[in-house]
């Protein structure tokens, strides 16, 4: 906590998620080094950086997805609304209901489209009856911009959709549990430009209600969808700032080199 106080320029009242001196080791490998980062509410934060620099690792710390990796060790302080995410009292299941995740490769369950979206609400007992569940499923699909395309085939397999539709289905599935934060790890890397545009549009709309963290390898995408950008390099957070400032006036030579395409 003392570290947090020693960093005056961060405004912790606005921050939804804060990271203070977060370190991650995979066995011997030091994958994330002393990361301090604030993620603000109702903003899109983009994480950029060359491959292997620890972007996914950071993302997976926030919803404790790293717990599942055998030899992964996380130290430092990570908070969600001021509560320590790694506190013993925190229930991972509840945490993950508050922090949703969308993966690089669309991973719909081998179930119907309806059941895919209803999966989260069902396990969290969010609907009292079938009518409420239908309502949640419909609004989630609607907000993910998928309803029009699938409303006649809700009972068909989710795996039968196209890649872009599958990814939007996964987004619908994530927002159906009404999370506060949505983590997206390269959500568009498996999609064509049209599907990508749709997902980007969607992210922009979702910002109103959710806090979004997105990992991307596309500078253009980061510039288009995010308000803040964080640049990682070799496990260190090199620079973070407003997207416009990072892309027009980067402070650090490494950042400059990366966004102008000189390495990475």
């Amino acid at each position, binding site marked *: 906590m003392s570290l947090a106080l020693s960093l005056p320029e961060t405004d912790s009242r606005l921050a939804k998620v804060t990271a203070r001196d977060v370190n991650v080791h995979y066995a011997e490998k030091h994958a994330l080094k002393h990361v301090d980062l604030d993620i603000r509410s109702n903003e899109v934060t983009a994480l950029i950086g060359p491959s292997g620099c620890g972007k996914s690792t950071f993302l997976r710390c926030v*919803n404790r997805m790293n717990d*599942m990796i055998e030899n992964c060790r996380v130290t430092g302080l990570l908070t969600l609304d001021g509560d320590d995410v790694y506190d013993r009292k925190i229930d991972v299941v509840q945490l993950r209901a508050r922090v*949703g*995740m969308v*993966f690089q*490769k669309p991973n719909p369950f081998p179930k119907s489209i309806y059941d895919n979206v209803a999966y*989260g609400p069902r396990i969290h007992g969010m609907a009292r009856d079938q009518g409420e569940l239908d309502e949640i499923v419909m609004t989630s699909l609607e907000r993910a911009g998928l309803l029009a395309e699938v409303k006649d085939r809700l009972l068909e397999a989710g795996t039968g959709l196209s890649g872009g539709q599958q990814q939007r289905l996964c987004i619908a599935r994530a927002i159906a*549990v009404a999370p506060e934060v949505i983590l997206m790890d390269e959500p568009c890397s498996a999609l064509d430009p049209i599907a990508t545009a749709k997902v980007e549009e969607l992210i922009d709309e979702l910002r109103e209600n959710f806090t979004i963290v997105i990992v991307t390898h596309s500078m253009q995408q980061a510039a288009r969808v995010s308000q803040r950008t964080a640049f990682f390099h070799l496990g260190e957070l090199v620079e973070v700032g407003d997207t416009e400032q990072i892309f027009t006036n980067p402070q650090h030579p490494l950042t400059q080199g990366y966004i102008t395409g000189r390495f990475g």
Partner: protein
Amino acid sequence: MQLLILTVVLLTLATLGYRLGRGRALASTGGNPRLLHSLPSYHGYYVAMWCGLPALLLVAAWLALEPSVVRMLVMSGLPADVQTLPEERLALLFNEVRLVASFGKAPSTPAVGVAAEQYLSLRQLSFAAMAVVSLVAAVLGLTAAQRWIQADLRARNRVEKVVSVFLVGCSTVAIFTTVGIVLSLLFESIRFFNAVPITEFLFGLHWSPQIAMRSDQVGSSGAFGAVPLFAGTLLISFIAMMVAVPLGLLSAIYMAEYANPKFRAIVKPLLEVLAGIPTVVYGFFAALTVAPFFRDLGISLGLSVASESALAAGVVMGIMIIPFVSSLSDDVITAVPQSLREGSFGLGATRSETIRQVIVPAALPGIVGGVLLAVSRAIGETMIVVMAAGLAANLTANPLEAVTTVTTQIVTLLVGDQEFDSPKTLAAFALGLVLFCVTLVLNVVALHIVNKYREKYD
């Protein structure tokens, strides 16, 4: 012994051919192997093959044909009155000739003694001829092939062609054996169905496969209604699956999803040892331990349990096939992509919710396939039921009674001295055919399901 020496000589020649071919190939380019079309060793194999293969094939063909030719010659040398004897007598006679010739048994008639001498000399002559012919073939092959060696000889292609023909030959052996078995099952079954109508066999409710010694004997006509056997097989397999599916599936889920890798590395092979225990060991375990246990338990509960019960055999068989179910299920469960697990955990599902609602449904086709394979294994299992389930062909659904199965009956039908054309022994072939068809269908369906499931994630 002589044959062994001949083979060794031929192989030595072939080795020599290899060295010569190799050396000649190298020499033909002045010692620069890069100018050769094929590596020098391929030239070596090429010569070795020309040297060894024709000669060995000749030997093989000779050995296959020799006995009948020799027999014909010996028989034609016998006196005319002997030659008109019926075929079986002739066979006996020839047998005697061979015994006299090979083991020095005293001949019963002078004619036999003469024939035996002729037999011996013929065989020696034949062997000498074979040795000469094959050695000539080997030397000819060696010299000819050696001449053919040139820098641009496609030795590699030729050698690989021969190797592939050899491989095809090996695999057709297996296929022809299977076809042969199926055909013999089929023909014998058809003979059986000439004696007993197929409808009676498939739908008859009474099984007592004896045949009369005298026509006026009591129960002179056997009954070949196989329904009690099918029912018994189904009952025991069903009990076995009731044991194996839950235990196997749950242990697979534990292994794949909960166990830490170290534990898994130790326990999984241990579980698979169950599949390696000889079935006869399971059999006496069932007959001597489990069956009495169930009987005593039954007595204390006031139930009458036969000392050879379907329950005991089924339970032990179930334990035997646990590893089938568990290791196949474990494979399909681990094949479910990690991304599905992460997707589910990412939505806040617990481990058990993820397993129940995502992983098992995703793996279900593969699991069903594994279970079907296990069923076909259970249906074909013999030893346990022979030892523990009894021989009484009861038509019952009560697992506490003794029942019998198709495999057990095949064993009892064929054990003992029987002519091979009585309906009693032929019935075994018909039962075998039914068993074969059922397990074949189960296997095909199961493999189809498993493969289809595999494709889905690749």
